[in-house]
């Protein structure tokens, strides 16, 4: 067969395509179809519409290039929470396990850092709360105002990080992002 194959470009293409399709089916499509049906934890809280909007902003800004949401059953991952399970990701598209930890894992950040004010200051300028941080400052999700209006969420940014005497106010986007981060709490049915 080999001696004929190298004279027949149609056969080469056909074998390559069929072989690859079979492998793709076995290694990717079938297992993916199977595991995507994993049931969520019974009683796990459903994300609010606002937190879901925050998740879309998280995708838009590419936060997942530096932050994993993927705790492995290893001692090096202990600080980040319990090992991640398939049910943690049910219904998420895309699931944000990630491949790089330039910043810390966020699978359980809502539990580990439950302060909304901290998250808002940190998003406005991470160096205001962590001097050595290299995370981008998301200043465009905040507004510098002369005076506040009713319902404004004022972010108490240290003086060194806010220009002049204006107050820094979180936009609805900043709040959505912070609430998404706060919603990242690993669920345990035993709780």
């Amino acid at each position, binding site marked *: 067969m080999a001696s004929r194959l190298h004279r027949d470009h149609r056969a080469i293409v056909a074998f390559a395509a069929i072989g690859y399709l079979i492998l793709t089916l076995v290694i990717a499509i079938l297992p993916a179809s199977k595991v995507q049906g994993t049931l969520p934890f019974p009683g796990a809280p459903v994300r609010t519409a606002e937190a879901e909007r925050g998740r879309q902003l998280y995708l838009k*800004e590419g936060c997942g290039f530096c932050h994993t949401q993927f705790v492995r059953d290893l001692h090096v991952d202990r600080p980040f929470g319990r090992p991640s399970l398939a049910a943690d990701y049910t219904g998420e598209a895309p699931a944000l396990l990630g491949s790089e930890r330039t910043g810390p894992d966020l699978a359980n950040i809502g539990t580990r850092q439950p302060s909304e004010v901290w998250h808002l200051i940190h998003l406005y300028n991470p160096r205001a709360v962590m001097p050595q941080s290299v995370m981008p400052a998301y200043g465009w999700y905040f507004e510098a105002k002369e005076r506040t209006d009713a319902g404004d969420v004022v972010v108490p940014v240290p003086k060194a990080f806010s220009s002049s005497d204006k107050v820094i106010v979180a936009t609805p986007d900043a709040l959505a992002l912070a609430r998404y981060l706060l919603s990242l709490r690993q669920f345990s049915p035993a709780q």
Partner: protein
Amino acid sequence: MSAVANPSTELITRQRSSAAADAATARVAYQYLVWATVWLLVGTVAGLLPAIKLNWPDFLPTPWLSFGRIRPIHTNTVFWGWSTMALVGLAIYVASRTSRAPLWSPALARIALWLWNATVFGGVVTLSAGWSRGPQEYREWVWPLAALLGLGVVLNGYNIYRTVGTRQLPEVYISNWYILGAFCWLLILYVTAYLPIYESGVGNVVIQGYYMHTAVGMWFTILAVGVTYYALPRLLGRPIYSYALGVLGFWTNMLFYTVIGAHHFIFSPIPTWLQTIAILFSVGMMVPVWAGTGNFLLTLRGARHAVHQSYALPFLLVGILGYGLGSTQGTFEAFRTANIYLHFTNFTVGHSHATMYAFIAFIIWGAAYGLVPQFTGREPNPIIVGVHFWLALVGVVIYVVALSVAGVLQGMTWAAGRSFIASIVAAEPLWLWRTVGGLLMAGSHVAFAVNVWAMRPDVRLSEQISAVPIASTRHA
């Protein structure tokens, strides 16, 4: 015999149009290279910027230039703009030459080129605007862009398939196995990656592992190896060491490479059998990798003088070594122990540059310097070639060493249970070195761009070519 001595008018006409078709093949292959170079420069800027931001995070604090948006612009532009267009330009030429036939339709190739240009440009614009499918590596582009890219793949794949179909020799040269295989596989894996029906929850992770790895291994690797199977013997003026090793590499690459993507998600909630088989087959990858690398090195055996004399062969040699060593490094990274300490660190980013740059980019440059003058009639400037080679080589070595060390330091601070910020403080001086390496690499890209201009088609030559019978312009 008499027909050769006194060719009929009809024969001369046919030969002239055939030579003109050759010139058209050369023109479109060159256009691919020009646009690839444009995207190389864009992608380089998009790589330097986030590198600098890791040391100066408040540098250019504009939304559309922020780290998370520009990182995928870098990866997608150098993947689909630079590497893909350059390799396909070379593949067009290789398929045509080894088939002794002009490209089936240069017009179709030009349409595909503009589809791809529109796609990559659209990718830069949409990702900087924040229209992204999120951090799913190399498939961040929104689906209409993916559809355009896929259409270009179909057009080019069909075009090359038809070209090989009109070959003047009975055998399909080994390069064309790889080139046709690559188009076939990219189409399948790209469609698989963008179909949403099995991608919820952990299903998405299974597909991400499959996709992010096979996009590299079943497209860039295959095309680069295919191009090398032509460029290396051509430049050395000797046959490839073993045709059979080439065939072995082709099929084993398909078998092993397709299966190993899950090694990006070791210790994750995807099925354990997938993880284990991915590690096993990563070891199996040594078969195609060393079948290819060994075959190329054996072809080069005793050709030290030729390598010294050539300005293309040193690039190919680095590329071949980059292939063997980079891929072997990848196998070791797949092991569970390596995953514990090195996964999630900069070590992986160093590895991806050892392969996409020290392997893929160097093969492209070697093949471009070796082959383009053969069809444009103009040579590059030798001094600028030298500048290109050394800046690129020293740059990528600094880059890979810096990130490998940074990765080990990150892994060590994590294993020691120190506060997370310690890993950033440890990596920061090495990130500066990464930028230094990156600047050298950027300088080498400018040198390459100057040489691409220097190698532009010589109009007088292509007129001469169309004026003489085809037999004298064809190489043996």
